[in-house]
């Protein structure tokens, strides 16, 4: 795929995406069943919701690599794993096969979902507004205090793998910052509304080992309307 063609696709997608609230629905075409009777599942790669050339502080090269290799790679891997699981005689399979496949399935599924949230959260500016801003003040004391904790957790994860997520916790009806050392760690029953990718693939190309500079750049480009609409939806769940 040539660079120009890539750019046109992304710009087109960004135009559509600008009028759309990001959803977390996965696309599942009703399909034939496999030999074991398990329905065939195909996860689809979503389009990048912004023009990668226009994100301040993160280069196009890095964003395209992140999208094509890490995110899309996870979706493709997930489809391969799902197909393997569907064809497995689960009762007869050795425990390490079951363990291995289910572990890989979890890693790939979460990588897919959380990367989509990450990309949906890029390309904005300024501070949160409205109900979300009020909730941050209520749960953290101030928006500044929330920013300080969120970025500190991100910086603490530098040099390896992980995520820091702003999640709504239905149990206590509050927002929390969640630490994760890999794709498999999330708040039980939590609804993440903003994710910062602290895997080195998210920043190395631009920032080398300077994870803190990447985190600072991220804090300037958060797309608050996405987090805001997700918060409104989740906080209304009963």
């Amino acid at each position, binding site marked *: 795929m040539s660079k120009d063609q890539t750019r046109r696709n992304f710009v087109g997608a960004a135009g559509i995406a600008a009028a759309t609230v990001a959803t977390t629905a996965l696309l599942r075409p009703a399909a034939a069943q496999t030999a074991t009777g398990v329905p065939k599942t195909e996860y689809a790669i979503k389009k990048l919701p912004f023009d990668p050339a226009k994100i301040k502080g993160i280069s196009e*090269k890095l964003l395209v*690599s992140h999208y*094509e*290799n*890490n995110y899309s*790679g996870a979706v493709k891997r997930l489809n391969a794993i799902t197909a393997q699981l569907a064809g497995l005689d689960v009762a007869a399979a050795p425990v390490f096969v079951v363990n291995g496949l289910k572990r890989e399935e979890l890693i790939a599924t979460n990588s897919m979902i959380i990367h989509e949230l990450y990309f949906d959260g890029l390309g904005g500016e300024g501070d949160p507004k409205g109900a979300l801003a009020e909730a941050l003040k209520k749960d953290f004391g101030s928006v500044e205090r929330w920013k300080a904790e969120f970025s500190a957790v991100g910086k603490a994860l530098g*040099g*390896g*793998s992980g995520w820091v997520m702003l999640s709504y916790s239905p149990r206590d009806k509050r927002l929390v910052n969640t630490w994760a050392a*890999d794709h498999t760690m999330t708040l039980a029953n939590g609804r993440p509304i903003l994710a910062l990718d602290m*895997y*080195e*693939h998210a920043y*190395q*190309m631009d920032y*080398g*080992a*300077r994870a803190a500079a990447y985190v600072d750049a991220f804090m300037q480009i958060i797309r608050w309307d996405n987090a805001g609409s997700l918060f409104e939806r989740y906080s209304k769940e009963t």
Partner: protein
Amino acid sequence: MQYHLAPLFCRPWTLNGITPRLIESHYEGNYGSALRRLNAITEELEALDPAATSAEVVNRLKRDEAAMLNSTLLHELYFASLGGDGRTVPDTMAAALARDFGSTDRWRQQFIALAEALAGGSGWVLLTYVPRDGRLINQSGADHSQNIAGGIPILAIDMYEHAYHIDFGANASAYVAAFMRNIDWAAVQGRYEDATRVAPPRPLEQKQFAGVPAMTVEEVKTMLDAGERVQIIDARPRHYTTRAQDIMQGAVWRDPERLDEWIGELSKTDPVVTYCVYGFHVGCETAIALRKAGFDARYMAGGHYAWKAIGGKVRLFE
């Protein structure tokens, strides 16, 4: 206690396909910061008053210390693995790889496969010497903390993305290929030679039974599987048998305190193996007594529980 920096040995500008910029970022930014963090934690730990500090604080610091110490050690090994002509494997290493993997190629294929499987995240692949059995294995870990207990790694490839992103982006395969081309085999071999001098974990001996011939549970199993004629006596004490639920397939129980009553049943020509619960003195004493009476008797080291641990067949003890 202060940990000191290990200087780079390889000359970064001579590496084949890996740039000095990547090495510098890795060495200063990742290795250097791990060492500095290790020293900061060590200072904190040393300043603690153990009586006044909660377990959680100690736990947190020690976990961090382990991660940073391992990062320091593994990064030093990584940089000490680079700077040679990776295609030329010296004789001692080639012989060891052939012995433990079938061939240098088989070793290489497995090592590369493990490395590529870690693409997109964090981890290490190590060629590790295991003193217990005196052999090399490839080992994959998802972070600094996953290593073979007691293993001595002699070659390391860093599969954290910071190790390759600057030069290779997401192309982990190209990085792994470049790494393989740059392996300093002379250094690896030196570490292998040092590792082979490390003794296996010292077995604790039952000194009082040192002179009594023993058989391992695996040897007994091999005899039984081959259909060899052997008389297996379960000599677990009578009081124990009231609690026992199973007995080795192929064994008969005899009371070790009443040897005279059953010694006459035994064939004088077929070998005898005796065992007890754990392989301590009852099984041994019985074997000693039988040997004194002219039987070719041995005790099974580890006893009944060792037999079950290797998955040996048992039947209900009636």
